[in-house]
């Protein structure tokens, strides 16, 4: 194909030509090397610091480390809320090659059902990319072992250990402790508004209810930081620096677990509540709202089925009846009204009226009746409280007028938040002219005032308000704020919070207070006292007042249910009392919804709480029953005078 070689080749000329071309080529090569080197010089010398920073930015990650949540103890050091390690099977979907196949294999291995898989897919959609999603929560040790042995088959799937809250006493303390649950968007928003987002960077759960929510700032602690070197997969290679988190503080409650358990026991699942306060500082010794539910359900994310069951349950377990239940106080507030009557000099201890079972006002057709159809006959203030005479208090309310009642009862804390360390609290309602105008756009009628005397007519109280008001009576006007938290652990020592008080009530004549307290003594101890039977033969001496509220169940957003109407219309039984009478230590209130009479239904339960509290205590032999000090002749004098 090619032509034969040219006969004469000038080798020297060709060699020279080639040499020249070589020189040119080498010049080009050196130019190119210079280009490469100058670029490298630019990268490695000129911009060294910039790239070094970016390189460190690549490899060094700052990881927040969640602090351990503070523990919660009862007053005797019994652990009520603890942190338990929980093992969750977590999947990073982006790191799994064939998600469907992997899930299939895992389902067989760990017996994962379809619901869990459905939940898992739903969770993926909500989740951020490259964040783990739980497939199975709370693995058993056997499951952990089973998975670990097969882990190599499942890249992108791992078992993660985390400390989660556990409430060993379950539903006994739900309304007190509340619970923690996964931080949701709303929580995040609140945290960022409060500037606390960074502190929660690694935290999984947040207090949602009860003490867990109210004392979140104490329990949570301070986030820590870990400076780690990571690879391109984000896997931690080693820790460069560790700034440990500051764990949340452990707290001690005023709650006495034994009393709390007694409260749960005596309620026996019925609707109602028991609250017991330390009357000398407002500490909440027991607070049980019945029916209750297991808070542990919420910690791991409650299923919508379970949640709806709780939400729609007739017993309305989600409400804390002690602080959110709004009940007509009925006769339980007669002592308070009597005191106001005395202090305002509307009545004297000697003032007597004749009770024939009916109360009428001039020019008014309506007749207000006593609970005792034929009346109590002649009664003075003391016997009116002891026997819970309604007519006396209709008359007292009439003579006081709504304004004085309203103002003074507000002073006692009715219609106002007690300030207990729970966010779940209602202020209930202390009616007044202004309130009625605002609420119904109607004037206050005189007829509205009369039933206020027996704790009805728009007047509602929460059990915590009621029991607090009685401690105010006992303490001659000192107003302790109910407190669930007793103190914090600091270096293994409990630092007590100390009692918190509101401005005390004005005391015009301390004797007036003692007269009312004596009447409450009479309720329990004297022959005609309504709660005498319930407290017969107690080793301690107590005082109190019963109440029977005609009307409905809890008012707050209660749904009208025709089927249960009959039951719902039954009276609420109430009792509030304290003991020992001479040197009070505790005050207790019991509310039983739709149970009937306060003295017959609620008082015996209050007694059980007191029995429990005083169990094993020695008391000097019961003193003789004291009759009212002013006695007959004063009363006679009064009646003569009245006549």
């Amino acid at each position, binding site marked *: *194909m*090619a*032509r034969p*070689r*040219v006969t004469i*080749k*000038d*080798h020297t*000329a*060709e*060699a020279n*030509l*080639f*040499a020249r*071309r*070589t020189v040119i*080529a*080498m010049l080009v*090569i050196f130019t*190119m*090397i210079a*280009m*490469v*080197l100058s*670029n*490298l*010089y630019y*990268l*490695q*010398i000129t*911009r*060294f610091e*910039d*790239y*070094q920073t*970016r*390189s*460190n930015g*690549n*490899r060094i990650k700052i990881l927040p480390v969640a602090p351990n949540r503070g523990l919660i103890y009862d007053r005797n050091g019994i652990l009520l809320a603890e942190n338990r390690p929980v093992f969750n099977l977590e999947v990073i979907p982006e790191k799994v090659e064939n998600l469907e196949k992997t899930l299939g294999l895992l389902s067989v291995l760990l017996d994962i059902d379809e619901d869990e898989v459905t939940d898992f897919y739903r969770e993926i959609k909500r989740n951020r990319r490259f964040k783990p999603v739980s497939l199975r929560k709370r693995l058993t040790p056997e499951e952990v072992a089973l998975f670990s042995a097969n882990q190599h088959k499942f890249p992108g799937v791992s078992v993660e250990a985390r400390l989660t809250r556990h409430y060993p006493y379950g539903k006994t303390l739900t309304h007190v402790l509340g619970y923690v649950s996964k931080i949701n968007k709303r929580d995040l928003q609140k945290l960022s508004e409060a500037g606390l987002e960074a502190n929660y960077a690694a935290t999984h759960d947040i207090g949602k209810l009860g003490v867990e929510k109210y004392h979140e700032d104490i329990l949570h602690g301070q986030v820590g930081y870990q400076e780690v*070197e*990571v*690879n*391109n*997969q984000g896997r931690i*290679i080693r820790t460069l620096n560790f700034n440990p988190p500051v764990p949340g503080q452990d707290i001690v409650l005023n709650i006495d677990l034994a009393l709390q358990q007694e409260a749960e026991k005596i309620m026996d699942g019925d609707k109602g509540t028991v609250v017991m306060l330390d009357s000398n500082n407002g500490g909440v010794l027991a607070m049980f709202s019945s029916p209750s539910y297991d808070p542990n359900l919420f910690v791991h994310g409650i299923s919508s089925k379970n949640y709806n069951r709780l939400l729609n349950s007739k017993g309305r377990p989600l409400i804390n009846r002690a602080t959110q239940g709004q009940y007509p106080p009925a006769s339980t507030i007669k002592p308070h009204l009597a005191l106001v009557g005395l202090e305002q000099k509307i009545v004297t201890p000697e003032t007597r009226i004749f009770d024939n079972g009916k109360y009428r006002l001039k020019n008014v057709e309506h007749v207000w009746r006593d609970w005792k159809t034929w009346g109590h006959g002649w009664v003075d203030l003391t016997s009116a409280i002891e026997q819970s005479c309604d007519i006396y208090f209709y008359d007292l309310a009439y003579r006081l007028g709504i304004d004085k009642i309203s103002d003074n009862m507000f002073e006692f804390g009715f219609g106002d938040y007690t300030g207990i360390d729970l966010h779940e609290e209602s202020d209930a309602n202390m009616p007044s002219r202004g309130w009625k105008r605002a609420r119904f756009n109607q004037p206050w009628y005189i007829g509205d005032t009369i039933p206020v005397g027996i704790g009805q007519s728009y007047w509602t109280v929460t059990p915590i308000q009621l029991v607090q008001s009685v401690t105010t009576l006992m303490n001659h006007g000192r107003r302790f704020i109910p407190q669930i938290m007793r103190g914090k652990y600091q270096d293994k020592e409990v630092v007590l919070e100390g009692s918190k008080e509101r401005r005390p009530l004005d005391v015009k004549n301390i004797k007036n207070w003692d007269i009312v307290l004596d009447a409450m003594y009479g309720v329990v101890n004297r022959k005609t006292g309504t709660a005498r039977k319930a407290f017969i033969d107690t080793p301690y001496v107590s005082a109190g007042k019963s109440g029977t509220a005609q009307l409905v169940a809890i008012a707050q957003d209660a749904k009208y249910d025709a089927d249960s109407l009959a039951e719902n219309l039954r009276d609420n039984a109430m009792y509030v009392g304290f003991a020992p009478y001479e040197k009070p230590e505790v005050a207790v209130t019991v509310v039983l919804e739709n149970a009937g009479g306060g003295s017959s239904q609620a008082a015996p339960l209050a007694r059980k709480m007191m029995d429990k509290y005083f169990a094993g205590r020695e008391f000097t032999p019961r003193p003789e029953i004291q009759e009212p000090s002013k006695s007959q002749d004063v009363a006679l004098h009064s009646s003569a005078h009245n006549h």
Partner: protein
Amino acid sequence: MNMMLRTKLDPNKRSLLNRIHCDGPLLLGLLVLMAVGLVTIYSAGGQDWQLIDRQLVRLGLAMGVMLVVAQIPTLAYQKLSIYFYVVGVAMLVAVIIFGDIGKGAQRWLDLGVLRFQPSEIMKLAVPMVVAWYISQFNLPPKLRHILIGFILVGIPTLLIAQQPDLGTSLLIASSGVFALFLAGMSWRFIGAIALSVSVFSPIMWHFLMKDYQKQRVLTFLNPESDPLGSGYHIIQSQIAIGSGGAEGKGWLQGTQSQLEFLPERHTDFIFAVFSEEFGFWGVVGLLAIYTFIVIRGMIIANRAQDAFSKILAGSITLTFFVYVFVNMGMVSGILPVVGVPLPLVSYGGTSMVTLLAGFGMLMAIATQKRLLSR
């Protein structure tokens, strides 16, 4: 250098190296490069001895091929060039018809026992055939011969370009063009080519380049435009190089490579690992070794006694340098990413065998010249 001097001073004394047709300085340069490669692969591959073992086997095999090639008389290459070339082109055509598709491109030919890329053959066949063709005439070549030379280069280039393997086709084209340049192609013609390339480029962009190729070029022009996608490699590579600084982070201490931020770190991007761990001064040293090899290659070419040998040796040497330049350019971000390994340092690849076969020819040319004395 010592060895280079000795061969010069003592042309008649036949050393062991000469007897096995090895050029001492060239062999030294290659061995040093391979050692650097092994050290860097050890670091880049996560201290995996298995990688080192495999690379050693591959290097041994390639060295064996080099030695065998070095024994064959250059005259034989001259005579076989055209057949080599024709078989190569035939195989490229076969690839189009029967080839396997690997990584989205049709490059492989499966011969039952053997599975290889015919484009590798062309890396040597093209400079050989051009050198063979052009050396038949008096140099500098006439325009007609240059044009025929371009046709010889163009056929395989286009065949490979449509596989598509743009990087290899450009390298093969340049090896042929280098041969023509060294043969004395006129400057006027060179000017004409430069002009036509600038005209042809936009046409190529629109009609010949596939989307992924265009993407590579676009990413190259602005890597930050897609930092998590195709720009990721270039950015991470630049971070690795830049953070190495003047002295480097130290062997096995490169965080970019050890923590796997660098892609393809023991293959195409090994230069970034080297730069990160050994710094600017290390890179200067590495370039010095490459430059030494290139200079030695050009010396061999100039000492060769016939035009075919001169042109072939020169072309192989210059192409070798282009590999180095393209790899370093793409890793450091001044050239688009085209998938060219750093010669003799990068891990693996069939290209290693081809490369050392080429050096075998250089060795043959360097050591056989006395046998062909005039």
